[in-house]
Structure formats: structure tokens, C-alpha cells
């Protein structure tokens, strides 16, 4: 996947999210112009950027949605929930496509119908009638494409062409290449300039553009020239896809119709025949009769060059016909339709074109066709023979003379191209002479002999030489001519050049305010800062060493002074980097209103989500790891917590259930609470189930209190999906939630009261990269424990530690604290009896505990690294950290150690 696509998807997802956010807001609190505006802009951005890639269905869908919003914005369409739902559906579809794009599994063929369907539905809101029409039209176009596109022009198409200009069909035919032609009517919106559109230039760059016209009303003195009044019609040759792609931004502002060039030629056939009939040139008619393409091309070309079109009305048509014949690459279509022997009126003639059964012309023309033109000769060669023998004149007619004279001029003209023109001239002359003189064969042989290949080539060479010398001289003269003129030009150009220079500045004025950075780069920066923190920690050691070994107190002092500076800088650097990684929790929260709305609708419940503290900041990594468990918890609340409206009314609760999602910063942590006012969880049921599942023993079943029982839902092996229904509470993978939360370095607690509701409380560290740990010493080795866990440090006489049954207990401030000897727990040798013991009091979810250690050390910032490799199995260490002097600090996992202790 390309980097650009990555960026596009990333940005567009943000746009999608904010758009659906706004949509939900609108649905709940009614349409507000600025919200519609916001959604419009979001979709506009998606549409705009999507055009960079070959994902037309997506672009089109986004465009349709954007158009609908534009109409809503302009108050042309009033916002309804149906519109909102449909827009959300469109956003979902786009999001699904993004997923596919991301993994590269997109199938545009499959996208297409979805896009067309959704797009049509969206457009239906804009204009119910027009959208029906246009969708039909689209269907018509596509069906035409498959079946009848090769056949004929529809009446509408013919009308449109006729409307475009007289003989537009013929003219277009002259210039046609490629199989398809289009006729587009582009009527830009009045306000299109404000969207940065430039209709004329769009039309001018239409692919395969052949002709266009621009209709412009007269403007009053006080007219608003920033209203677009231009209407453009254009015809050209290009495939449907290409045109649609070109006009993708302007959907809804244009109508286009496509037809095949074959259909065009078929419908022009009669016109061409008519015109040929009026051109009194036998060479041409004969050539057409013989279906001799080369001959037709050349003689039509000659006629075109020689004919002087100054008199009659249908000159234009004739000229175009000749033009067409001079370049035509096939003439079969002329003979395909059989000439009608019946006299038909002009009207029925045009009808008959569409039937293609026969082509009618008015009687005079058809007589002319038969007697003079003979274009159907391949089928009727005997007619042709009869015709020739019946020809009255045996002397050169005036026009024949004229033509022969023209040949002479042509032969001498500059544009003369031997290979192309000579055969036709020869043929023409030959035919003329042949008709005038009865002895055709001898004449033809004589002419052919006279002008055999050699002579032709010689002539060609000569002409070539002549031309090249001419060109050379022309070039030199041109050069001399151009030198002053280029000077003129440069003068002209430099003037605007100076004037133009402010333009790039204008373009740059929208300076980038936000910088998007690859997250791995930030992570790398974070790592380095972490290393720096560790490296900085070595300075105090150095100072100590300088004092002890070097004996220089002064040096030690200086190092310490420097350390404080480095320390300060590192800390601000660290917090700066951490700040970069901080994002408000709304980043995750904003997805939930949608989730809740959808789920609530599905379950026929009424639920209101109240969010608080969305701007609480959080480490990006953490937030992302949080998203899943939070969804899980919310889903449980909706599914099992909140009762159905009837049930709620029965219980005397408000009909609409309420879920609170609250984020509160607490020191370096964040508390996230999910509170619902549903039916709560019955601890007795949990107890029983846990017992049945073998999570707790019989004795525990009796001793366990309600709060402990509730926490059992987090126990591994407690929940499976079947329980959900009979438990009437939560239970889907709560252990998974707990695992995810503790992986993020957090804890989860749950409170519930039957009939009142349930609260989940997640306590999460704000950042996960730097931890403050307290160092201590056991058996000459350094260990660390997370500073959050430390409650206090005390030194007590050994005698104060009492023994109750098989547990050591210490009483601090009238509080019983179980004590665990770390030497024992970590497998060190027992210490000789001491008079005084150092106790580190730590808090755990099970309450406070005392750890007997040897010596306290200072607190330190470390970057905790997880245990890897062979050490990964040791659960009583949660990780390691590197100390300033290079030693490795093992950080103990208090809960695991305590479990061993007991």
C-alpha cells in the first residue's frame, strides 16, 4: 500500500468519525447549520482526496452524500432521521471500503453496484423526481451499452444533436475516432464559483472534446458576476468511464448521453446519401458504388479542395459530407440500409432510421440516388452497368473540365502528397477519360504504363528534395523573423512575471498548523528520551565516585550541579514528548454514541449516554488499547444492564436508561467509570455460578462476601457465553477485559447493587512509558517496586512483628497488616536476627501488606521493560529496568510475591 493511501485512509477515517459524530448529534438534538456544515466539509474532504486514487465508487458515493448535505445546508431539503440513517449507512459503507483498501482486498466491481444504489438513494432525497429520471437514464445508458448501443441513436439523442447545431451529427462523424461519442449538457450551479469550480475550463479539458457551445445570457449592470450563468453543451468522442471520471466533481450539474460511433454513422447514412446525390461527381459516386474506400477518400478530398462552396444553402452539409468521405475508414454502413423504393416523407424518413429496416429519402433524392449515385452498387452491379451505358454525354461536361483543371493545380500544389493523392488523381482522370472515350481498357493501360511506379517514386523524390530545400530556407527566414519577436515576447512576459510573483505566496498562506507524524517516530523519540533519563541517572553515581575515589568534593559538587540542570532538561523533554503522545479520551469516546445508538435500536431499548471529562488526556497507545475493553463493558451494560422500557417503567425507573462514561484525571492516572442504572448484578447468583464452574471452593462459597463475589466475574474460566442469558447480568469475557486493562498497567473494579445499577471503575496510568519505582535492597541485591503501590516505609523493632496462627502480623496505627518476608519469598537465605526491621507497606486490591526488606533506597524514574526469553516465566517480577550505573533492576510484582508468601 502506498504511503499516500495510508495518509488518505488515516485522515479520512478521522473525517468519517467526526461526520458520524455530528450526524448523531443532529439526530439527537436537531439539525444545526454548523453541524451540517461540518459534515459537509468532512465528506467534501473525503471525496476530494479519494479522487487521487482509482476508487471511483467511493468518490461517487461520497459525492452523492456531499450533494445531499449541500441541499440540506441550503435548506432545499429538510433534514429527517431517514436522511441521517442513510448518511450513516453511507459512512459505514465508506468505512468498510477503507478496511478493504487497507488490506488491499478491494474489489471495485463489487463496490460499483453498492455505490450506485446508495448514491441513488441519497440523491432521491435531493430531488425525488429527477433522481428517478437520472437513475433511469443511467440504467438506460448502461443497458444501452450492453445491448443496443451499437444499433441506433435514440430520438432524444438525435434531437439533442440537431439542437446542438445543424449537421452536428455529420461533423461529429467526420472527427470521430474510438467507439463511443458523448453529448454533454453541463449547467453549473449558480453558486459553483464559491466551491472553486471553473466550468469553462472543465469543459475545455473534456477528453476527446470535438465541439462545444457556451450559452450566456446578457448581464445587467448590477448583475452578480459571481453567479455562474454559463451553460455549456459539448460533444466529443470518449468512453463513458472517462467522461464520468472527468465530471465526477460536478455530479448533478450535468447530463450526458453516450452513443456509439456506429449508431452515429447509421443515422447519418441517409443524410450522407442525400448530399452525395447533390454532388455532381461521377468518380465519387462510382467509387462509392464500388465500395472502393481509397478512391472515395481521395476523390472526396479532391472535391473538397477544389469545390468552391459559395452558392447553395446546403453547402455546409455538402462540405462536411465530403470531409467525412475523405477521411472515412469504412463505408459499409452506407450500403447496409437498403434504399427504399417507396417515396417517403421526410418525417417518416427520420423514423425509419431508427428502425433501420430501410432508409428513406424524399422521392427526388431517391431518384437521384438511383440514377446518379449508385452507392448501393455492390448489391446491384447490373444497375450500375445499365447506368453507365445509359449515360448521355460523351463529351467532357463543364464540371468535368473544371475537375481536370483542378487536378493539374493539385499536382503542382505544395500540399500535394504523392502516395495519397496520385492514385486518386489518376483514377479520377482515368474514369473521366474512360467515360468520355469508349475504349476504356486501352486508355487505362496507357495511363498506367505512363505513370508506373518508377515515375511515381522519381517524382516523389524530386518533390521531397524540393520540399526539404524549401523548408530549410523557410526555417532560416523564420529564425531571422523570430529573433526580434522572441525579444518582444520576453518583454511582454517579464511584465506579468513580476505581477505574478505574489500568487505563490497566496497559495502558501494556508500554512500547515497541524503536523501529522508517524507514531513510530514519536515512539522512537520516547525511547531515546527514556535512555537519556537512565543515562542522566548515572551522574549522581559519578559524583559519588568522584568524592569517594577521586577525593575531590569540588568535582563532585560540580557534577551534582550539572546533574540538576540535565535532570531538569530531561524532565521537560520527557514531559514534552509525553505531551505529544497525549490525546484526549474523546478520541475513543466519540465512537461510543454511535455504538450505543445502534445497539439500543437493535434491542429496542432507550438509552442515553452521558459522557464527562472527554478532554482528559491520555497516552495514545493506552487509549487505543482501552478502546476494546470499553466497548466490551458498554455492550454488556446495554445488553444485560439496562432493562427494556416496559420493565423500567414497571420498576418505577425512567423509561430511558442512562449510561455514564466518565473520565477523571487523578494524579498521574486516569479513572474511567462506566455507570449504568440497570438491574445490577446479584452477588449470590455469581457465587453459585462460580462454585458450579469450579472457580471457588465450597468453603469459599460460604466465606466470600458480596463485594468479593462480584469481583469473581473477572476470574478466568468464570464466564462463557451461555451464562449471559441466565445470569441476567454481565459475563462475556470479563477476564479478557481485565487482562487487557492490566496489560495497560491499570486495574479494574466493579460495584453493583441489585436494581440500582452497576459501575465499572478503571484506574489507568496516564502514560505507560516511564514509571517511578522505589528501590530497596534485599540480600545485597537491588529491587524495585512501583511507586503507586507504596503506602509507607517504616522501621519497627523485630519484637513488634507478632505471629497469629501461621501468619506474621504487624500493628501499625491500630491496623493489622500482614507481613511477608521478602528474603523468604525470593528464596534468599534467612538473615541473622536483627533488632530492627525495615517494612515497606504496599497496597494491593486485597488490602495493605508489609514487606520485610533489608534497606530502603531512593525512588527513581525508569523505563520498565517486560521480562523476555527465559525470564518470561518468572511471574513474581513484573519487569526490569536499567540503572544509571549499568545494573539491572528487577521490579517485583507485589501480588504474585504475596501469593507465594502465604
Amino acid at each position: 500500500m502506498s504511503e499516500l493511501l495510508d495518509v488518505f485512509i488515516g485522515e479520512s477515517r478521522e473525517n468519517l468519525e467526526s461526520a458520524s459524530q455530528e450526524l448523531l448529534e443532529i439526530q439527537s438534538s436537531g439539525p444545526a447549520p454548523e453541524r451540517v456544515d461540518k459534515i459537509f466539509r468532512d465528506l467534501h474532504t473525503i471525496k476530494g482526496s479519494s479522487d487521487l486514487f482509482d476508487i471511483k465508487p467511493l468518490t461517487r458515493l461520497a459525492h452523492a452524500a456531499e450533494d445531499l448535505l449541500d441541499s440540506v445546508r441550503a435548506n432545499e431539503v429538510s433534514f429527517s432521521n431517514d436522511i441521517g440513517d442513510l448518511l450513516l449507512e453511507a459512512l459505514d459503507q465508506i468505512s468498510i471500503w477503507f478496511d478493504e483498501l487497507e488490506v488491499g482486498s478491494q474489489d471495485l466491481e463489487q463496490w460499483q453496484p453498492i455505490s450506485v444504489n446508495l448514491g441513488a438513494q441519497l440523491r432521491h432525497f435531493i430531488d425525488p423526481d429527477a433522481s428517478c429520471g437520472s437513475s433511469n437514464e443511467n440504467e438506460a445508458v448502461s443497458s444501452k451499452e450492453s445491448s443496443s448501443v451499437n444499433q441506433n441513436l435514440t430520438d432524444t439523442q438525435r434531437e439533442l444533436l440537431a439542437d446542438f447545431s445543424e449537421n452536428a451529427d455529420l461533423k461529429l462523424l467526420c472527427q470521430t475516432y474510438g467507439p463511443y461519442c458523448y453529448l454533454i449538457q453541463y449547467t453549473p450551479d449558480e453558486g459553483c464559483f464559491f466551491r472553486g469550480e471553473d466550468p469553462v475550463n472543465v469543459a475545455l479539458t473534456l477528453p476527446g472534446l470535438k465541439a462545444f457551445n457556451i450559452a450566456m445570457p446578457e448581464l445587467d449592470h448590477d448583475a452578480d458576476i459571481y453567479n455562474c450563468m454559463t451553460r455549456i453543451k459539448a460533444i466529443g468522442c470518449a468512453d463513458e468511464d472517462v467522461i464520468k471520471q472527468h465530471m465526477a466533481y460536478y455530479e448533478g450539474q450535468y447530463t450526458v448521453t453516450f452513443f456509439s460511433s456506429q449508431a452515429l454513422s447509421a443515422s447519418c447514412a441517409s443524410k450522407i446519401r442525400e448530399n452525395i446525390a447533390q454532388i455532381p461527381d461521377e468518380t465519387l459516386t462510382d467509387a462509392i458504388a464500388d465500395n472502393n474506400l481509397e478512391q472515395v477518400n481521395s476523390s472526396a478530398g479532391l472535391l473538397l479542395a477544389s469545390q468552391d462552396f459559395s452558392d447553395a444553402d446546403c453547402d455546409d452539409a455538402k462540405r462536411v459530407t465530403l470531409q467525412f468521405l475523405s477521411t472515412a475508414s469504412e463505408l459499409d454502413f452506407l450500403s447496409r440500409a437498403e434504399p427504399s423504393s417507396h417515396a417517403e416523407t421526410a418525417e417518416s424518413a427520420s423514423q425509419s432510421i431508427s428502425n433501420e429496416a430501410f432508409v428513406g429519402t424524399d422521392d427526388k433524392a431517391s431518384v437521384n440516388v438511383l440514377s446518379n449515385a449508385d452507392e448501393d452498387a455492390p448489391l446491384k452491379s447490373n444497375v450500375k452497368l445499365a447506368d453507365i451505358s445509359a449515360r448521355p454525354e460523351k463529351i467532357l461536361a463543364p464540371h468535368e473540365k473544371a475537375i481536370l483543371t483542378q487536378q493539374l493545380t493539385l499536382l503542382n500544389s505544395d500540399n500535394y502528397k504523392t502516395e495519397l493523392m496520385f492514385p486518386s488523381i489518376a483514377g479520377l482522370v482515368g474514369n473521366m477519360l474512360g467515360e468520355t472515350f469508349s475504349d476504356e481498357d486501352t486508355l487505362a493501360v496507357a495511363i498506367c504504363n505512363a505513370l508506373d511506379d518508377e515515375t511515381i517514386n522519381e517524382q516523389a523524390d524530386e518533390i521531397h528534395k524540393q520540399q526539404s530545400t524549401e523548408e530549410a530556407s523557410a526555417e532560416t527566414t523564420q529564425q531571422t523573423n523570430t529573433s526580434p519577436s522572441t525579444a518582444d515576447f520576453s518583454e511582454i512576459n517579464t511584465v506579468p512575471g513580476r505581477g505574478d510573483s505574489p500568487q505563490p505566496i497566496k497559495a502558501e498562506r494556508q500554512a500547515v498548523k497541524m503536523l501529522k507524524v508517524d507514531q513510530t517516530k514519536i515512539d522512537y523519540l520516547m525511547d531515546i528520551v527514556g535512555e537519556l533519563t537512565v543515562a542522566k541517572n548515572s551522574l549522581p553515581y559519578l559524583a559519588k565516585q568522584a568524592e569517594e575515589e577521586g577525593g575531590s568534593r569540588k568535582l563532585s559538587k560540580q557534577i551534582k550541579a550539572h546533574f540538576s540542570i540535565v535532570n531538569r532538561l530531561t524532565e521537560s523533554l520527557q514531559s514534552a514528548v509525553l505531551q505529544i503522545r497525549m490525546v484526549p479520551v474523546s478520541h475513543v469516546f466519540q465512537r461510543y454514541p454511535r455504538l450505543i445508538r445502534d445497539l439500543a435500536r437493535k434491542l429496542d431499548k432507550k438509552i442515553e449516554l452521558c459522557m464527562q471529562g472527554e478532554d482528559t488526556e491520555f497516552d495514545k497507545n493506552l487509549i487505543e488499547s482501552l478502546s476494546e475493553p470499553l466497548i466490551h463493558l458498554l455492550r454488556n451494560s446495554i445488553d444485560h444492564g439496562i432493562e427494556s422500557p416496559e420493565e423500567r417503567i414497571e420498576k418505577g425507573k425512567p423509561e430511558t436508561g442512562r449510561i455514564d462514561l466518565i473520565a477523571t484525571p487523578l494524579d498521574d492516572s486516569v479513572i474511567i467509570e462506566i455507570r449504568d442504572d440497570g438491574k445490577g448484578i446479584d452477588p449470590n447468583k455469581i457465587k453459585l455460578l462460580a462454585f458450579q464452574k469450579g472457580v471457588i471452593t465450597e468453603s469459599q462459597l460460604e466465606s466470600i462476601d458480596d463485594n468479593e463475589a462480584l469481583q469473581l466475574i473477572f476470574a478466568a474460566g468464570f464466564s462463557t457465553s451461555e451464562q449471559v442469558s441466565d445470569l441476567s447480568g454481565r459475563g462475556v469475557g470479563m477476564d479478557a477485559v481485565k487482562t487487557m486493562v492490566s496489560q495497560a498497567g491499570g486495574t479494574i473494579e466493579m460495584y453493583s447493587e441489585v436494581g440500582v445499577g452497576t459501575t465499572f471503575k478503571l484506574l489507568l496510568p496516564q502514560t505507560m512509558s516511564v514509571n517511578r519505582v522505589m528501590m530497596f535492597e534485599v540480600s545485597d541485591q537491588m529491587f524495585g517496586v512501583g511507586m503507586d503501590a507504596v503506602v509507607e516505609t517504616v522501621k519497627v523493632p523485630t519484637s513488634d512483628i507478632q505471629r497469629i496462627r501461621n501468619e506474621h502480623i504487624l500493628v501499625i496505627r491500630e491496623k493489622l497488616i500482614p507481613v511477608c518476608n521478602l528474603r523468604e519469598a525470593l528464596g534468599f537465605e534467612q538473615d541473622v536476627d536483627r533488632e530492627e526491621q525495615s517494612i515497606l507497606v504496599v497496597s494491593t486490591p486485597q488490602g495493605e501488606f508489609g514487606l520485610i526488606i533489608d534497606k530502603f533506597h531512593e525512588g527513581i524514574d525508569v523505563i520498565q521493560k517486560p521480562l523476555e526469553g527465559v525470564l518470561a516465566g518468572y511471574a513474581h517480577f513484573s519487569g526490569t529496568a536499567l540503572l544509571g550505573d549499568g545494573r539491572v533492576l528487577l521490579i517485583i510484582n507485589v501480588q504474585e510475591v504475596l501469593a507465594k508468601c502465604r
Partner: protein
Amino acid sequence: MPIAFKKKVAVMTGHCEIEEAESLFTWLNEEASRQVNLKALTSAHTAVYQVLLAKKPKVSVWPESENLFWLIKIMNNKSNVWCE
């Protein structure tokens, strides 16, 4: 400036942006006899073309740029322009 307004003639050069349309329109409205010199005009925004086509001012010099052949035709009241 892409458009230099002289006494009687507005000289348009290079590409005329949409912003020029208004000043051109007002300037042409001030006096009916005013002309435009399109010699060095290469392209323009639709809004500018719109002013030219709607006002059809007298053109003192037609554009040299081949891209604007159509403008010449349309301003000379040829409704259809065929690309050769």
C-alpha cells in the same frame, strides 16, 4: 496585475483569476466604448469568460494563444466551436 486598466483598453495578460472578473465587469460597465486587449491572455477563470461573453466588449487585439481560438469564435457570435 493580469488586467491593466488603461484609459480605453483593458490589457489582459496571462491567466486571469476569478478575482479579476468583478473589476473587469465594473470597468466595462462604466463606459460602453471600452475595449479589451487580449493579446497576451492565455487562460481565464469561467467568471472572467462570463464577463467577456456577456458584455462582448470590442476587442482591440485578439488573443495570440492558440488555446483561446474558441473565445474568438464565440465572441464573434459563432455559437458552436469545433475543435480542429
